[in-house]
């Protein structure tokens, strides 16, 4: 029975991410186009909203190219392990007060830890491609994603400290509006570190199209490439949902079904901000990225933690 439920949840999560990615791509195209003084997709459906529906069959029917020198088995299945952890991590998000798909007492830890498995898959896909540019991209991705785990986790730790629990539902329940100003630095750090985690601009160094062409997924095509892209959008959706839930109180000030709507609106706002950042800023360099992580974000996150710790006894 548990297995069946797990399977159904898995299908639901993949379907959510896939449809979210489709909508996300459309939304990103519109946002990016507006930032760049263009219109974006216009022709297919109202405001071009069916453009991605037209794009998906194209991706499905594209030739699946596997390079001659690639390590075939790893090359073929690595995209699955890039996409999988992102889908799994979504399961602990408290969609509304009192309800999360999986209610567990270590939910926050689960959310922060599980997507890290992605790093191994990325490194495998980069290595299996047998391509110097891919390998460089994979190495950059590994360094970046492992480093940015630390400020990201520290930022979330401030919230955990305030709520006194690692259970996402408890966090949402304990959440008060004045946490927003108190943990503002933590949210900014979480926001930056999440962008770095999902390898999006201005931290898209592993896939920098101008130097590494597409980095670790340079040799992928068709649906396998699409699963990398879905993983990127999936982690963007997951990070935005989680951020909206723990930093902005989930469905606050509403509960029930209305709470889910409010959470989704907050998520879309965070996602739009992520897109805005990507289409405004140039890309950082590898060393600048590392010094930002270790010299700025990590100390700041610790300072935030100390502030919360000092304030805590007086609450």
């Amino acid at each position, binding site marked *: 029975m548990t297995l069946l439920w797990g399977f159904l949840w898995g299908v639901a999560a993949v379907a959510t991410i896939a449809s979210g990615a489709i909508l996300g791509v459309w939304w990103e195209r519109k946002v990016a186009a507006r930032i760049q003084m263009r219109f974006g997709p216009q022709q297919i459906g109202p405001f071009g909203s069916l453009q991605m529906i037209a794009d998906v069959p194209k991706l499905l029917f594209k030739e699946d190219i596997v390079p001659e020198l690639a390590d075939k088995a790893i090359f073929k299945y690595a995209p699955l392990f890039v996409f999988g952890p992102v889908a799994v991590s979504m399961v602990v998000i408290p969609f509304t007060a009192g309800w999360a798909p999986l209610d567990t007492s270590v939910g926050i830890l689960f959310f922060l830890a599980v997507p890290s498995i992605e790093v191994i898959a990325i490194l495998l896909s980069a290595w299996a491609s047998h391509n110097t540019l891919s390998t460089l991209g994979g190495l950059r991705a590994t360094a970046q994603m492992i480093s940015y785990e630390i400020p990201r986790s520290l930022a979330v730790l401030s919230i955990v400290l305030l709520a006194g629990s690692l259970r996402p539902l408890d966090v949402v329940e304990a959440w008060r509006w004045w946490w927003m100003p108190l943990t503002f630095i933590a949210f900014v750090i979480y926001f930056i570190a999440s962008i770095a985690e999902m390898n999006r601009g201005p931290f898209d160094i592993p896939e920098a199209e101008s*130097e590494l062409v597409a980095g670790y997924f340079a040799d992928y095509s068709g649906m396998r490439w699409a699963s990398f892209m879905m993983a990127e959008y999936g982690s963007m959706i997951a990070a935005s949902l989680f951020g909206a839930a723990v930093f902005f109180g989930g469905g606050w000030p509403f509960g029930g079904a209305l709470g889910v709507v409010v959470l989704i609106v907050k998520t879309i706002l965070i996602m739009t901000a992520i897109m805005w950042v990507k289409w405004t800023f140039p890309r950082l360099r590898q060393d600048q990225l590392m010094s930002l992580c270790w010299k700025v974000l990590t100390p700041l996150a610790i300072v935030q933690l100390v502030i919360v710790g000092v304030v805590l006894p007086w609450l």
Partner: protein
Amino acid sequence: MTEETIVNIGPSHPSTHGVCRIVVTLDGEVVVKAEPIIGHLHRGIEKMAENRTYLQVVPLTDRLDYVGSMYANWAYCRAVERLAGIRVPERAEYIRVIVCELQRIASHMMGIGSTGADTGAFTAFMYAFAQRDHVVELFEALCGSRLTYNYVRPGGVSMDLPDGWVEQVRSFVAQHPAAMMELDTLLFGNVIARARLKGVGVLPADTAVAWGTSGPTARGSGVNWDLRRDDPYSVYPRFDFEVPLGENGDCYDRARIRLWECVESCKIIDQALDQLEPGPVKAEGLPRLLAPRPGDAYDHIESARGSLGVYLVSDGSPRPYRMKVRSPAFCNLSVLPLLAEGHTLSDLVVIIGSLDPVFGEVDR
């Protein structure tokens, strides 16, 4: 010390701005040695020119610097005119100045835009290309072509300005400086762009001169040398303009002075339109087949990339005996190994972009 990796950038790579292969020896992320291997776009234009009449060579020169075709047209025509002793009517000279300054804007927009794209600021690329597209549309109205114009001909230009074109140029020139200010804030005012461009690929002034660089590449290092002012040709002495100079010779200066050059180009266009008077646009009494007297002639102009020269040798026949194009992009690219050493792979891409090579001209 880790084991060194050899990475091939190109020949088909988005940031080589054409078809150039760069064999990069990497120590981790740091470039130990970068060797450009050029010639992938070599079409033997100098050899082909020996097989054509003087007028038939003009379309070939379009294919040299395909981002700035007007320059190669003009440089070639100046060499032919010098060789054959043709006097160009004044209106034609003004039209040439106007189209070439517009071409400078179009070409620099490509250069700045690709600096943005190389650093990952794709929006800056789009902003620059919106401006470039205005210029390209003006050229389309002028000569029916958007990329290879074949407009400047020996003895003048191929046809007079179409009706209403001057007003279109005026309205473009009026809005362009403000758009440049906006682009300056968007790209060069950005804190990440500054961190990426400043202090990267520093070219000292004496090296810039010794290695024969010219144009924005040399002026970014503070080499005060612009043929429009220092070896004036055509009607340039009649215009009042500044030559923007960089200080540090890094990628930031090289890319940014292109922006100010566009603003100065607007000033020149404005003055040229004021002074433009009706008259013929082609020299009178040109023979259908040019056969200059034996001898050789060289003439150069300041193109968007630097001093572009054409050396022509005639043996009295209707075909050039020898044509040599002194290509600024070729000389500018030769400093790449010096600049790239010790920087990271990401910087290498930015350095190539700041040199703004066009491989039609490098490989010829």
